[in-house]
């Protein structure tokens, strides 16, 4: 018994150590958000300092934070939901009704991400001009959707594969059609996986900056553009950049917290027994 408690404590200590080390740079950045510019690059680095909110005031003044956040939300969540709607059936099909072609299709989907953005910027820009989608949330959402779709399909496929075939077949035998199997059996069982996939996709779109900066101007810019406007001007910027970044990380962290609660559900497949 003692040994188990000791193990438990050791695990907790190690877990918190890992969490601390990983989160430390983010913490340091968050700290810089409350420092003046001079304090942010002071040497020796300051752990204790007079906090100030001047950076937040300046961010507020210079950037329409709400407008950018709304764009980020629409693009990130919109593209993730759409990717889920389009990708889940495909993942389901490949996981439970595999064919000889399944692996090739998976690899082919991944191959659509082989082209570096720098190589394809001008052609895509020209396409967007002719479709009238420049500087629109729709255009950015479409690009984000297509960029994240392979990731969503792969991750969902991986998690669907962990759902026992027996359960799905039981549902099928009970008369459920494939989409019903997907919706009522697979998705609930793979809920932690779906939550993780959603989180990953949202984060990737939220932080995506290359397409966002190059395809939007003043109407559809997301938080990535707002942050970019604080990066590397002629003058000190690290405190302000930290503030802008913190303002962008905060909403996503909240979302992360909400999806994490899905993970907490200890899932076993004892139901199969």
């Amino acid at each position, binding site marked *: 018994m003692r040994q188990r408690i000791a193990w438990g404590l050791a695990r*907790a200590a190690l*877990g*918190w150590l*890992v*969490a*601390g080390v*990983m989160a430390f740079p*983010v913490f*340091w*950045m968050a700290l*810089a958000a409350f420092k003046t510019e001079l304090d942010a*690059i002071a*040497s*020796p*680095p300051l752990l204790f300092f007079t906090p100030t909110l001047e950076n937040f005031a300046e961010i507020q003044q210079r950037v329409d934070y709400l407008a950018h956040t709304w764009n980020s939300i629409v693009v990130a969540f919109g593209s993730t939901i759409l990717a889920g709607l*389009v990708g889940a059936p*495909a993942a389901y099909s*490949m996981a439970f009704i595999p064919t*000889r072609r399944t*692996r090739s*299709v*998976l690899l082919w*989907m*991944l*191959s659509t*991400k*082989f*082209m*570096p953005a*720098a*190589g*394809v910027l*001008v*052609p895509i820009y020209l*396409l967007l001009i002719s479709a009238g989608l420049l500087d629109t949330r729709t255009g950015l959402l479409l690009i984000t959707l*297509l960029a994240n*779709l*392979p990731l969503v399909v792969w*991750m969902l496929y991986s998690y669907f*594969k*962990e*759902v*026992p*075939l*027996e359960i799905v077949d039981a549902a099928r035998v009970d008369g459920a059609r*494939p989409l019903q199997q997907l919706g009522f059996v697979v998705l609930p069982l793979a809920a*932690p*996986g779906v939550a993780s996939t959603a989180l*990953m996709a949202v*984060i990737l779109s939220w932080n995506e900056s290359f397409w966002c900066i190059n395809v939007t101007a003043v109407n559809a810019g997301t938080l990535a553009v707002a942050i970019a406007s604080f990066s590397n001007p002629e003058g000190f910027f690290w405190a302000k*950049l930290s503030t802008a970044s913190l303002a962008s*990380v905060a909403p*996503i962290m909240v979302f*992360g917290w909400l999806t*994490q*609660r899905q993970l*907490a559900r200890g*899932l076993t*497949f004892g139901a199969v*027994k």
Partner: protein
Amino acid sequence: MNMAEVQSTNDDPGFPAAPAVAARGWPRARQRVRTWPFMAPAVGLLAIWMIVPLALTLWYSLQGYNLLSPPRGFVGLENYDYLLTDPGLPVVIWNTIVLVVAALVATIVLGTQIAVLFYQPFHGRAVARLLMVAPFFVMPTVSALVWKNLLMHPVYGLFAWISRSLGLTPVDWFADYPMAAIIIIIAWEWTPFAALILLTSLQSLDRDLVEAARMDGAGPIATFIFVTLPHLARPIAVVVMLETIFFLAIYAEILATTVGGPGLATTNLPFFIYSRALLAFDVGGASAGGIVAIVLASVVTFFLVRAVARQL
């Protein structure tokens, strides 16, 4: 049905699973379920996304098209020749591969350990888990700038202060170990990705198996090697494939810190395309570079698939 049989069906790495299932007596009708309606939307969208830009890029790569000069028209393979005979190309490809492999190894090894650690409950685990994932929430450019200026700077960075307090000379990361510095930043950013995927997969690890192993006298390490790792084989394969694709395209962190230098030390293929072509407004060259990048990624994937395909 006993657990062992269920487990074996699920984890059967063989491909495809349908015949094995059919052999166990399930109706053949299963194989005649038409899958294309499920696949069509995803495949269709991606097909358009791939084909149209690819065709355009291929076409541009054969043109002498600089944004600032009148177009020169068809130039055959001149753009490819220019890129492929660049004396720096071998170094660039090597850097690309080094970056990908090092980051893969770091993130997966660390990610697996972290996943196993966070799999068992402990006090305050939910908060700790969120903190562990925190690196992935920050924009890559900002991460790179925070590491470069606030942490790694040899005069006013935190690491420098720690070194000086211990009586050591601070390491000038981006001058002396630029590639290592970039790899550290990438590994820090992406370990949460691997850890989260693996941790989620661990949720479906049957605890009965772990119990059975423990009762058979297996210590934690043996349990890890013989029970946990096989279960994680597929998710690890997925992480490897996904991360490889992302790491092959890394660009923002390099641009924000070393700008590809010193020399060519941190120039990888996407950065090479950017700095050779896009910066000179050479669309023809950039397009040729894109095609070359696709070829490299295909080659890498080919070898990867041979290594991990069974797990899929």
